[in-house]
């Protein structure tokens, strides 16, 4: 528990740094990737020093993301195992969206949506990394056939769009659910936030202190 009696510690400093590295990488990847994905977004390459530079930097950011995300994965994967209450929660997703969390089961550190974001991103980043390697001609051109590269390109693009959509959900949720953002900016959340959204977790935290 935090020094401040009114807040609950949610993320350690290391976890937050890890998250933000991941976040920044993902955003840069999305920007550079989208720049090369759709012509109308090609102008975004200017953020990276031009087309050649964007093409060169993008995979390296991908490497950073992969390593960084791996850190997050090992940090959090045990907390993201699917529980019975997650299924219930999912069934009541409509209520959640309508800002009505009454009658939902108590949740641990993560709700089902967050877990889906976690596992979704885990799988997509794995696929993105794998397909990205296939497309990274500078080093790996000779290891795959052109047809494999074509498949990789489709997989990469589809996964990237998927990851971006999940990311939008993730970001929107952070904006929509007030009090969430501070978990990643300051490491702590208010007791009220914890009680409201992750009561089981809050209960455990309270017990620990």
């Amino acid at each position, binding site marked *: 528990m935090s020094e401040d009696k009114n807040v609950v510690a949610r993320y350690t400093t290391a976890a937050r740094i890890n998250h933000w590295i991941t976040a920044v990488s993902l955003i840069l990847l999305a920007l550079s990737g989208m720049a090369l994905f759709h012509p109308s977004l090609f102008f975004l390459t200017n953020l990276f020093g031009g087309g*050649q530079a964007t093409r060169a930097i993008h995979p390296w950011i991908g490497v950073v993301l992969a390593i960084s995300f791996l850190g997050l994965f090992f940090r959090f994967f045990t907390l993201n195992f699917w529980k019975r209450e997650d299924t219930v929660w999912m069934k009541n997703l409509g209520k959640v969206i309508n800002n009505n969390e009454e009658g939902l089961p108590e949740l641990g550190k993560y709700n089902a949506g967050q877990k889906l974001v976690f596992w979704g991103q885990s799988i997509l980043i794995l696929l993105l990394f794998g397909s990205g390697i296939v497309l990274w001609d500078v080093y790996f051109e000779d290891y795959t056939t052109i047809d494999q590269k074509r498949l990789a390109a489709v997989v990469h693009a589809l996964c990237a769009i998927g990851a971006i959509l999940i990311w939008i959900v993730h970001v929107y949720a952070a904006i929509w659910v007030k009090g969430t953002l501070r978990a990643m900016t300051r490491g702590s959340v*208010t007791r009220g936030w914890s009680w409201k959204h992750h009561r089981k977790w809050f209960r455990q935290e309270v*017990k620990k202190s």
Partner: protein
Amino acid sequence: MATMQSLDIRRRSASTEAPPQVRQSAIQVAKLIDVSKCIGCKACQAACLEWNDLKAPIGYTDGTYDNPTDLTPTSWTVMRFTEYERGDDLEWLIRKDGCMHCDDPGCLKACPAPGAIVQYTNGIVDFVSENCIGCGYCVKGCPFNVPRISKVDRKAYKCTLCVDRVSVGQAPACAKVCPTQAIYFGSKEDMIVHAEHRIADLKSRGFQKSGLYNPPGVGGTHVMYVLHHADQPSLYAGLPDDPRISPMVGFWKGVMKPLSLAAIAFAGVFGFLHYITKGPNEVSDTDERKADEMAKGKGA
């Protein structure tokens, strides 16, 4: 209208603006490669290297006549030799490989860099190196496995159909040099007529299946072959029987692009609408109180 413009552009890679369409080239150009006349002398290769100031590295022999053994960023055309036993007789099928200048170029379709690949109104597909970002998407887009990315400058290279020569009224270097007129250059219309004569001659010499290779799957090409065995293009060192832009590339560079942006936009708009209609999910004072109670009660 740009002053620097030496040839009018029909298509331009990764561009949201359409090029001017009013001026049309007087002719569609084409190079006709008559495999039945080709002696595999590689004069076209030499002329290509010389004209384009390419210094390909000196390699080693691998025990075949193919040298360099494949297209490279510094070898834009290569001869591919195939020993084909047709009954008791041997045929040495020699095909000049290089860019086919598709009417519907897969490279251009795949290219993400605006203006890195252009198709002129005369049909030539050219790579504009300044705009090339070296992503290698053209390699994936090409149904003929032609473009190559340079390890030196990470830019894509391939036959330009000597657009610099054609734009001043000269034939491509390979066509001009060919000692046996196995390469013939002119309007696509004339080349097709010429090919018909060649095919008639080949049929008279017992090649009943001879024909013109101008594959419709890529909208026809501006480099065409006369083949003695037009029913089996793949005999000629794997010339695709029915080339078309890979469906994967078609999907990736086709419907996927707008759909993806739409999905992203939809997600954004949905979020925005959700926010303004449903409002934020806030922690109420009641929640805070209950939380405090729970904290005090140590999880009671």
